[in-house]
């Protein structure tokens, strides 16, 4: 048996935009065990809820993450609205759905670019991010913000999208589809991508379930779990079907995200076709009293926003369980037995968002 050594991976590493640390126990070039450490940038944002008005706190909830920011604010609002029994206008629910799917599109394109970069595929990285810019342009045009949209409110949304803009978005999505097809074709067919991802970082279906994996990580292992199936916001009207692959390797997780972009385009198009008229915001008076666990599907998987209130303007507790935290145990399983050179690729396939995890 070769001598075992412990190799520190991170918290600063070229493939990691944010700090997470892994102690890799190696035998030659093979990883025997990986022990993760987090908490380098923990901000304690949840604690701020005791000091802020529950309506103002929407803006803090949105800043938990700079990628899936909109979905954080929408899920927090959903939790508070449920506690207060606020009936959100249907048009606002459609708008939240549209912006959520745009967030998923730009997040998946960001991930595809980073994933290509982790394999040394610079050209693919640039093409992914070039397309992502088009999505960010739409978010900026319709909300005023590229990263932080700031349009969610308790009781609806603060901005409407006029019919001419919805028509323009529909036209642009039709033009985006062939470009995305060309991009994802490379991920699906390129021999370099396949060599670096097939049969690498295996996570069998039963292990994914046991370890509580969520999002594309569990769907890449054959589990059809997607919170959009619960029908929150306007998803109950949009005939949503999760994208599922069964191989459980890095390639399967990549394909799930690639196909989900087309699913997102389809959902946005249906939402634009079916969006009803009416108000987008109802006035909310009083303070919440009660508790609720709201769930939504972020680009990285299921997110939970728990709120507990006692009738004051400050909530007693806000707890966020982010998908990256839920996927850490699955990552430990994927890394055991892999080659050292595959570690960056495997780590990226959970699409780690440390900002979310260290909320």
């Amino acid at each position, binding site marked *: 048996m070769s001598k075992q050594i412990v190799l520190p991976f991170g918290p600063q590493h070229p493939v990691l935009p944010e700090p997470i640390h892994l102690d890799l126990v190696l035998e030659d070039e093979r990883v025997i065990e990986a022990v993760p450490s987090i908490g380098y940038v923990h901000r304690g944002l949840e604690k701020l809820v005791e000091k802020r008005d529950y309506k103002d706190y929407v803006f803090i909830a949105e800043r938990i993450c700079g990628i899936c920011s909109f979905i954080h604010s929408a899920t927090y609002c959903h939790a508070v609205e449920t506690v207060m029994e606020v009936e*959100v206008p249907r048009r606002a*629910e459609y708008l939240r759905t549209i912006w959520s799917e745009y967030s998923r599109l730009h997040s998946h394109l960001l991930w595809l670019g980073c994933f290509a970069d982790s394999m040394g595929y610079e050209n693919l990285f640039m093409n992914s991010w070039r397309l992502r810019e088009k999505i960010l342009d739409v978010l900026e045009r319709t909300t005023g913000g590229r990263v932080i949209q700031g349009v969610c409110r308790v009781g609806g949304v603060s901005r409407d999208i006029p019919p001419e803009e919805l028509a323009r978005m529909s036209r642009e999505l039709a033009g985006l589809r062939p470009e995305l097809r060309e991009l994802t074709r490379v991920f699906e067919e390129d021999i370099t991508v396949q060599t670096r991802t097939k049969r690498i970082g295996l996570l069998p279906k039963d292990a994914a379930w046991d*370890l509580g994996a969520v999002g594309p990580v569990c769907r890449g292992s054959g589990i059809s779990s997607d*919170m959009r199936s*619960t029908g929150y916001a306007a998803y109950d009207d949009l005939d949503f079907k999760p994208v599922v692959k069964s191989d459980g390797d890095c390639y399967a997780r990549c394909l799930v995200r690639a196909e989900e972009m087309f699913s997102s385009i389809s959902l946005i198009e249906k939402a634009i076709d079916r969006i009803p008229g009416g108000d987008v915001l109802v006035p909310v008076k009083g303070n919440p009293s009660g508790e609720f666990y709201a769930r939504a599907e972020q680009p990285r998987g299921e997110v939970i926003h728990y709120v507990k209130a006692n009738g004051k303007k400050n909530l007693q*507790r806000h707890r966020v369980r982010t998908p990256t*935290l839920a996927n850490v145990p699955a990552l430990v399983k994927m890394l055991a037995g892999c080659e050292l050179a595959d570690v960056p690729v495997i780590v990226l396939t959970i699409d780690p968002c440390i900002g979310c995890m260290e909320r």
Partner: protein
Amino acid sequence: MIKKAQSFQALSPAELIQSVQTCHDEGYRLVQISCTHDGDNYELTYSFDRDLALSHLRIRIPPETAIPSISRIYLAAFVYENEIADLFGIPITGIAIDYKGTFIRTKIPHPFGSPQVVKAGSKTEERDE
């Protein structure tokens, strides 16, 4: 929007392991563990999912009371249990991967252990209501 009901079941700490084992045997996925203040006590909620429906098991414990880890049943629990131990200071025994207080690096120990924000080296801040 479809609204799904969520069920809560209150337990004593002694019943926890058996109830979690039952959830595991019945095919539930561990979704999360959360901790909140409940007066002078703590309230821990264990959430499980099956067929997209959420069920919660809940225990109430006084401060400094040790509770058993469920990570021997659901390994994924180690992240939530280490987090609760580090942020709230609740002793959890038998965690499968126990970081012994180093999972979340905090400037002050157990920053969520008090219901109000406390700055390092200062007295408790007043809540600005």
